[in-house]
């Protein structure tokens, strides 16, 4: 099965990858969107004072 990899996806904030699988006729059989990035804000915001979060969470996305 032929495969087209788009890595990275560009012109957006963040990291992304697309894998497209083509069947024998060259038609798209299936496609997968993947996010190869995680920073873990859900974890490291724990324990921070709530009044500090407006200075931490803007760094989830700065675009």
């Amino acid at each position, binding site marked *: *099965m032929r*495969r087209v990899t*788009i*890595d*990275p996806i*560009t*012109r*957006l*904030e*963040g*990291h992304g990858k697309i*894998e497209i*699988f083509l069947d024998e006729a060259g038609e798209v*059989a*299936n496609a*997968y969107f*993947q996010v*190869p*990035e*995680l*920073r*873990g804000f*859900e*974890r*490291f915001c*724990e*324990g*921070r*004072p709530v*009044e*500090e979060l407006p*200075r*931490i969470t*803007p*760094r*989830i*996305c*700065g*675009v």
Partner: protein
Amino acid sequence: MAKLKLALYWAATCGGCEVAVLDLNEKILDVAAAADIYLWPVAMDYKYKDAEAWHDKFIDVCLFNGAIRNSEGEHLAKLLRAKSKVMVAFGSCACFGGIPGLANVADREGVFARVYGETPSTDNSDGTRPQTSFTVPEGELTLPYFYDTVKTLGQTVPVDYFLPGCPPVTKQIWAVVQAIVAGQLPPPGSFVGVAEKSVCEECPRVKEEKKVTAFVRPHQVIPQPEKCLLEQGLICCGPATRGGCGAQCVNANMPCRGCYGPTERVTDQGAKMLSAIASIIDATDEAGVKKVVDQIVDPLGTFYRFGLPNSLLTRVRV
């Protein structure tokens, strides 16, 4: 003169550094006149395979932002280091670990358990976790390996220049771009786009060397606009932080959180903050000191807000 070949890349980052570059506004046209950009995922369509095909040292200057969080970040750091004559750690994540570096309070499993298991909005009863390799009917899919510990760019590959800030202020970026174009960069290993001294030197507030009897949190007081925030009992990281930002936060009545990293002569920003705080606490005995210090709610997340991976501690033991 031949045009410079530039690459801009982001690893574990938020994209704010890219926007800081775009905040050059019309000066970006001057950059385009002096340099051709060969990689910049946020703005232009190049693929990793394009970068892999370049010969070594093909790129003149790589501006690399973001911390090194997973194997993809490490791979791109090593790839772009090999392909670039000059590697610049751009922004606080690349220089010190930045906000993503706060994840060094946990390890890989600790982050995954929270993100993919415990968060109230997550429904993942079968415990699915990211896999580095996963077989689907059509073939194999791969993801980068998520490390236990966030590293800085300089802990991953040799770095020629460090341009800190979260994000770096635009006028500093422009000054560094001009120095690059003119070939007037300082010796390798230098910090660029920064002031020599601390944020306190740039801060217009009045310092009277007064002693502090209590620390307060920002929502508990309305700070006086002309007086040193630390002397008002608000934890301000200005004394431990390199200037160059123009003291933007303190000018907006918010205490410094240290994004420009430690000053030239300081190794550990948090240790320097402890020293600064110790010197202003007004107490005569150990119990009195403890009472004041206990009012600092989150020393790790405050003193190492932007630099836990770069600190002597590097991470919390788990």
